[in-house]
């Protein structure tokens, strides 16, 4: 019995429930949050190991057999994503000790973060499309409160845009689920894959696919549905923006990749061709938007948008290698982007601002911080031998093999423009002389530790690209050929 498939849901849930029980005890909540985040990371690694050794794990919740009950299913993609969720959760839980003020802690930061992680893990683990909607909502409601926590004016303004767009996306998603149920009579994704493969109305299925693409596209922030992201991600405290930047849009990307490899593969030339076009536009608009910004975190937010384009590019090409590139890119991006946000928080502690104009002289003031910024920044731009180089390299090779030269050109150009953006931050914040004196402000070591750990991880992925690529390729092969997935879900009863 593979009961531990449910562990990534139980650990944060128990932690959140216990934290609510100790509502007035901040220290207890803090330790509960920290230990549960690390346990989540551990359970993710355990899951990943088991999937590699014993194949796809599935569990019929409540003992109801597959197409009727809710199935939790974990293939390699799920395993990787849950592990990353645990990693980012742990990094942010450590970082929040010094970054989140006491007021936000008393209003439940720690249980909310755990509920968010539970929602994210649930979305990765579920094998039922309505259940996916429910986990999305769990994740969203936690993120709504986290975004507004503290109630500063800009948080509320940015929060409203975030809430509205995400609710529209949820309504569309739910309508899509309803129509899908009407068309196929099932909600289990493996069962849907089987039923829709022999569907006699391919046009209807493609129309449904478009509804899902729009709904998930808003969550993943692809062109032209991304405007909520740079309006809101820079408003809350850094620990919260970092976990949003690292995980939330990637849940949207995960959902797109999941349904467009498992369920909606009837008219690949049309749907995936469209995704490829969207990817190119997402990359370009994101990076151009970033060029016009002067706020550290707003630049990073626009780069999230541009990087989402790379992740969906692999899906658009729809070959084994391209998907492996997407998976590699997601692994690389989650780590690097979270790290950059964490570093922006350290910079803010030192200089007292997120505005590039107010910064300067950090290279002399703190060479370690400068080095720490350069590692993820170069990785993001794709400088070898860091993780971003290999991620882009695989995608571009896949593009060349498919003879999609336009998207390859876009990907290369956007990489260059990303480097330009990172150079801009470097020149403004680190290189130019400080515009005004700021005294030596100590930054707590709980803020340094996760940033350093993630930077080391980036370097490790760069130098150990072989094993990571191998894992991504196995993942991609599972995604391209869902027979094993369907077998694991529908073949196992009780």
């Amino acid at each position: 019995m593979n009961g531990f498939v449910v562990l990534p849901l139980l650990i944060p849930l128990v932690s959140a429930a216990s934290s609510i029980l100790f509502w007035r005890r901040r220290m207890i909540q803090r330790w509960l949050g920290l230990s549960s985040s690390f346990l989540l990371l551990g359970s993710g690694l355990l899951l990943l190991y088991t999937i590699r050794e014993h194949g796809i794990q599935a569990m019929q919740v409540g003992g109801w057999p597959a197409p009727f009950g809710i199935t939790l299913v974990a293939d390699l993609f799920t395993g990787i994503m849950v592990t990353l969720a645990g990693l980012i959760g742990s990094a942010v839980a450590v970082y929040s000790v010094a970054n989140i003020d006491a007021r936000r802690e008393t209003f439940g930061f720690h249980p909310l973060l755990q509920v968010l992680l539970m929602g994210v893990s649930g979305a990765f683990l579920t094998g039922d499309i309505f259940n996916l909607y429910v986990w999305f909502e769990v994740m969203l409601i936690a993120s709504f409160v986290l975004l507004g926590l503290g109630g500063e004016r800009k948080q509320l303004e940015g929060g409203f845009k975030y809430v509205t767009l995400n609710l529209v996306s949820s309504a569309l998603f739910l309508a899509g689920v309803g129509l899908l149920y009407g068309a196929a009579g099932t909600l289990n994704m493996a069962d849907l894959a089987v039923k829709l493969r022999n569907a006699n109305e391919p046009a209807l299925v493609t129309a449904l696919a478009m509804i899902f693409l729009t709904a998930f596209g808003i969550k993943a922030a692809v062109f032209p549905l991304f405007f909520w992201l740079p309006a809101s991600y820079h408003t809350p405290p850094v620990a919260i923006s970092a976990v949003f930047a690292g995980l939330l849009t990637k849940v949207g990307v995960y959902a797109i990749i999941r349904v467009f490899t498992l369920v909606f593969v009837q008219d690949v030339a049309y749907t995936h061709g469209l995704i490829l076009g969207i990817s190119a536009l997402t990359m370009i608009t994101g990076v151009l938007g970033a060029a016009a910004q002067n706020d550290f975190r707003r630049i990073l937010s626009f780069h999230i948008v541009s990087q989402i384009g790379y992740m969906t590019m692999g899906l658009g090409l729809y070959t084994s290698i391209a998907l492996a590139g997407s998976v590699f890119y997601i692994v690389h991006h989650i780590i690097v982007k979270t790290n950059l946000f964490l570093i922006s928080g350290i910079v803010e502690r030192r200089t007292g601002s997120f505005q590039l104009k107010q910064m300067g002289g950090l290279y002399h003031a703190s060479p370690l911080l400068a080095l720490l910024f350069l590692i993820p920044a170069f990785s993001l731009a794709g400088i070898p031998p860091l993780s971003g180089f290999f991620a882009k390299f695989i995608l571009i090779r896949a593009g060349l093999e498919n003879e999609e030269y336009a998207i390859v050109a876009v990907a290369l150009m956007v990489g260059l423009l990303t480097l330009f953006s990172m150079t801009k931050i470097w020149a403004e914040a680190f290189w130019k002389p400080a515009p005004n004196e700021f005294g030596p402000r100590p930054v707590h070591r709980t803020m340094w530790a996760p940033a350093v750990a993630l930077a080391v991880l980036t370097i490790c992925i760069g130098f150990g690209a072989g094993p990571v690529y191998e894992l991504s390729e196995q993942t991609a092969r599972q995604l391209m050929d869902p027979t094993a997935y369907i077998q694991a879900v529908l073949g196992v009863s009780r």
Partner: protein
Amino acid sequence: MIYLLAVVIGGLYSAGFYMMARRSLLKLVIGLALLSHATNLLIFTVSGVSRGRPPLIPDGQALAGGVSDPLPQALILTALVISFGILAFALALVLRTNESVGTDDLDEMRTTEQ
């Protein structure tokens, strides 16, 4: 019946999107609520409207006259509870935003966009 429901759903969707396109925050939230009602009604309609058939029957009893699908009701109930919670949250957010910004005009909330 199904055509009537289709018209109602269409009406709710268009009213919802119209309200969301207004500048007032409160109207935006009303629009969101209409959108979720339309979606619930849509699930109800597409999964087959039937009359007088029980969703659950006692163990061992024969299916006289057929049964209706109980799943859409379960889906709608779940979606209703979720949208109830989110609507409550959105209203609290409107209240809080109104206190802090001093207006409910969306055009005046541009400090995050400079």
